[in-house]
């Protein structure tokens, strides 16, 4: 079953084509990677899918429902969550409060219920704390729950971002370069974590630079170059695809490799 689908998705910025008629299908329950050289349009794809930008043309659907024009905040309610390439934790809040923010859509108590401290409000807040602690446990940050997010080390902030994103058990998790700046050991732990997230029922779409990391982890890989999709398939096929090698290494090097 296809969970996320984009059809002929395009984004133009003042004459520059950042994403050019990209078709993408992410299977439910898979780990899907989006790769490509710098400037290939990966982050723009993420911004379009998560609703931060409105595409110039094309269509995005989640589980069959058209979400092309939905604003960013509505995506969360549809079961989508994301992390950012440059870490965007709420620095002044505690670690636990950060994760609670990720459960915003799960808390439906309005102003009145909040002001009157109705039982519904209390129940939802308590549930949220329980779920947030569970998410922190999963990423291994339970002990830091009451520290300020700003006090965490870089790698921990990345994990906090992931905890915040998965706290509400999204159907689709978008991870933008989650392994950036991590050493191999941390990377391996992260792979592990992402698999566990997938196993818990969340489909994962990730953008990543580290080819080794992607090839070990992803079930399927889509390659973008200059905004176009140039390849799509299982990692093993992608690794051998000449157009991918050309895109990454340049035509000359690719020719040499072929000759060799």
């Amino acid at each position, binding site marked *: 079953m296809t969970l996320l689908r984009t059809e002929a998705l395009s984004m133009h910025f003042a004459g520059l084509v950042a994403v050019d008629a990209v078709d993408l299908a992410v299977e439910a329950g898979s780990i899907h990677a989006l790769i490509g050289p710098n400037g290939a349009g990966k982050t723009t794809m993420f911004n379009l899918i998560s609703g931060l930008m409105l595409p110039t043309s094309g269509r995005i659907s989640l589980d069959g429902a058209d979400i092309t024009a939905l604003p960013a905040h509505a995506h969360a309610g549809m079961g989508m969550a994301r992390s950012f390439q440059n870490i965007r934790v709420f620095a002044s809040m505690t670690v636990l409060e950060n994760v609670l923010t990720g459960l915003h859509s799960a808390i439906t108590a309005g102003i009145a219920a909040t*002001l009157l401290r109705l039982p519904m409000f209390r129940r939802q807040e308590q549930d949220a704390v329980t779920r947030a602690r569970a998410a922190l446990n999963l990423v291994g940050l339970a002990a830091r729950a009451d520290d300020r997010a700003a006090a965490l080390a870089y790698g921990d902030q990345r994990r906090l971002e992931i905890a915040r994103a998965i706290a509400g058990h999204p159907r689709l998790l978008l991870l933008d370069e989650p392994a950036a700046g991590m050493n191999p050991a941390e990377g391996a732990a992260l792979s592990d974590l992402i698999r566990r997230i997938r196993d818990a029922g969340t489909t994962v779409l990730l953008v990543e630079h580290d080819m080794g990391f992607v090839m070990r982890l992803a079930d399927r890989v889509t390659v973008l170059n200059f905004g176009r999709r140039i390849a799509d398939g299982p990692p093993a096929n992608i690794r051998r695809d000449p157009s991918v090698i050309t895109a990454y290494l340049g035509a000359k090097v690719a020719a040499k490799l072929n000759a060799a």
Partner: protein
Amino acid sequence: MPIWLDDFLWTYQNVVYALGVNGLLGLSMYVVLSVGQLSLGQAAFMGLGAYSSALLTLKLHLPFAIVLPASTIAPVLFALAIGTPTLRLSGVYLAIATIGLGEVLRAAYLNIDYVGGALGISGIPERAGVVSIYSLLILALLGFWLIGRSAIGRAMEAIREDEVAAATMGVNVARYRLGALLTSAVLAGLAGALSAHVSSFIGPNEYGFEPAVTILSYALLGGIGSPFAPVIGAWILTLLPEMLRGFADLRLVFNGVIIVLAVLYLPNGILPWTMRRRAA
């Protein structure tokens, strides 16, 4: 009550009222700043509340229990009109648009004879007092404290920190911002109605650019870590001119310097303590 105490209370009665009213104004600034917006419309909202309530009392002879809530209607309508288009834009636009709002209203008060033109409205009966002012202030503080310790409060802080990240968490940023602006208009409108009904006279030049800046400095001085901070900020800046009477010419210098120093060196205000954003 001994006579000296009576005299003492009578002497400082207006100061006591001003502390309460300015506390409400500090909160009206707080709620906008706490979602990362800068509005300079609080004085304009206050003026609308003051004018509409004074007219309701003097022309329609309505009881204060009706006048007070009704004084929030005009500010809220104006907040809707100004907020709907500008909230989508950069924060600078809201600040400038709300300055514009204040000037349009000032021109309106001056040119409409029904509201007294430059002569303002005088002879407003004293209907408000310590009870009405401080119960509203306490209610507002309590409300913000309860909201702060909830998902709504967390969402507000998240918007202030990083609106894009907040939006991807499912926070409807535009709705929160409009809600904050409307709440701000309600509080400023109430403050206007209360102040009009303790001082018997209101004029068109009391709600312009300078008071708008003064209200901003309440929140900047106190900080916005918790709802108590802007109220404390308002109290300090209300009492200072009374203590610095002889320095009146330099009072505005002082106000300005406080804002500069606060932004540069105390970005969190003089009460940097922040409240915990969870209820459990």
